[in-house]
């Protein structure tokens, strides 16, 4: 039992520290990491879209939406940085990386626009501000399907 507690503590400490990012040795591994990144980006983009729809439909609760959207903006930027820090194994990987990076960059730009609008208190019309995210989301989902 004591051993178990110690083991658990070790696992816990390991897990609470930041996620390690290793270099990808093969194209397959690189592709898998790209897909995971794209999936989490879809989650962020769709969260922001839902937030925009909610804000536009119901008005109010600006502070909450601000926190929600800026958290997702951070998550998205973090995902992009992490992915950039992974070395591509070959030329196919380079192309794949560039494709994903572009999609992430576009999504990030549009999420930032939503966050800015929220900070200015522009809740009405938020749906329009968020509308480019539809294409970003579709692109990321396509990426997941093509490479998943």
């Amino acid at each position: 039992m004591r051993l178990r507690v110690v083991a658990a503590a070790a696992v816990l400490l390991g897990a609470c520290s930041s996620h390690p990012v290793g270099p990808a040795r093969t194209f397959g591994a690189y592709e898998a990491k790209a897909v995971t990144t794209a999936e989490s980006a879809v989650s962020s983009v769709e969260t922001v879209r839902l937030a925009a729809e909610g804000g536009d439909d119901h008005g109010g609760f600006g502070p909450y939406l601000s926190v929600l959207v800026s958290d997702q903006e951070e998550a998205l930027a973090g995902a992009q940085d992490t992915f950039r820090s992974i070395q591509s194994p070959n030329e196919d990987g380079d192309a794949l990386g560039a494709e994903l990076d572009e999609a992430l960059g576009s999504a990030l730009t549009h999420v930032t626009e939503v966050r800015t609008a929220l900070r200015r208190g522009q809740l009405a019309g938020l749906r329009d501000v968020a509308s480019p995210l539809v294409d970003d989301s579709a692109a990321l989902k396509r990426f997941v399907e093509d490479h998943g």
Partner: protein
Amino acid sequence: MKKVLQVTLGILTAIGGFVDIGDLVANAEAGARFRMNLAWVVLVGVIGIVVYAEMAGRVAAVSQRPVFELVRERLGPQAGLVNLVASFFINFLTLTAEIAGVAIAISLVASVHYGLLLPLCGVLVWLVIWRMPFEWMERVFGLAGLALAVFVVTVWKVGPDWGSLFDAAASPHVPAGESPFSYAYFGIALFGAAMTPYEVFFFSSGAVEERWTRRDLALNRANVYVGFPLGGLLSLALMASAHLVLAPRGVSVDDLAQVALPVAVVVGKLGLAAVLVGIFAATFGAALETGLSAGYSVSQYLGWQWGKYVRPREASRFHLVVVLAILGATLFALSGVDPVKVTEYSIVLSAAALPLTYFPILVIANDPDYMGDRTNGRLLNAIGFVYLVVLVVVSAATIPLMIITRGGS
């Protein structure tokens, strides 16, 4: 109204156990990732905690002996100490996460970074433990936590096809794209969350704090049968709302703000206000529960005077443990750990320690030397025994699964 107020101990215990920060996120994430395929685990957990909390409450009412005293009496000083160390560690992690959860809940309204609010939240939790009467603690945070019922409203407003929702929950399977290990890991997290040991520490100590006696056994049952199913219902509603609103859009939940999103989108402003109040009350309630449990478990193992039913100076070692636990947890939260991760690990780890707490309860609830003629009936024993076996299996499987799935990711 008076009757309603008497079941607040059960409600607060359940709210703090079922929809505290870890469960808010775990349930929403489970709904978003596994749809309703883990709903059965919540149901299994509710039955388990109802059975064992009723025993713990009955033992406390009949013999005035709270759970951690039983742990030491039946496991002995050595195994009792192992359980104390494990429970205290889990409790501490949970307390850390809850204090952070309170801060995050406030930050969603105040637009201040939650890190700045942590010291304030730590002080608030301590102040309430120091000054607020036990019954008022139950009423304020237990009843305010019921604002989370807005998740039920959300599900109802989405107007799902109830038949298919029920079918989905009744015929669980591992969804495509998920490994059986992750499924099992999440299942254990939800089960561990439903049966976290601090619930019985708090509930049984609360029964002694409120001076329950043999005459209050009906009250004990009412608290258990109302509180825990209510907590279970809220966590199912949370899961369903994520399943209905977030999953179709490909959203996976990893922070507290996202948990409230289905309500914000479906119900609107008032709903969001309710959910934020609910999250605040539930995390605050859980912080009280775990902060007090830290003091309860240590004091009851060592035989110190404990409790809010005496003046603080008469239970000074107990209050010192509580203060140090809150202080340590606040500092740990300030160090920048991800509160959601901390709490997810703490509920999974608590699954590993469960049998050491529930086994002594089951034995004492059958011991006429403590219970007189109020020992368990046959049916209760049958269910209690089956759960004990499940607890042992779950406990053995927990750590390997944690390693295989790298924490469910």
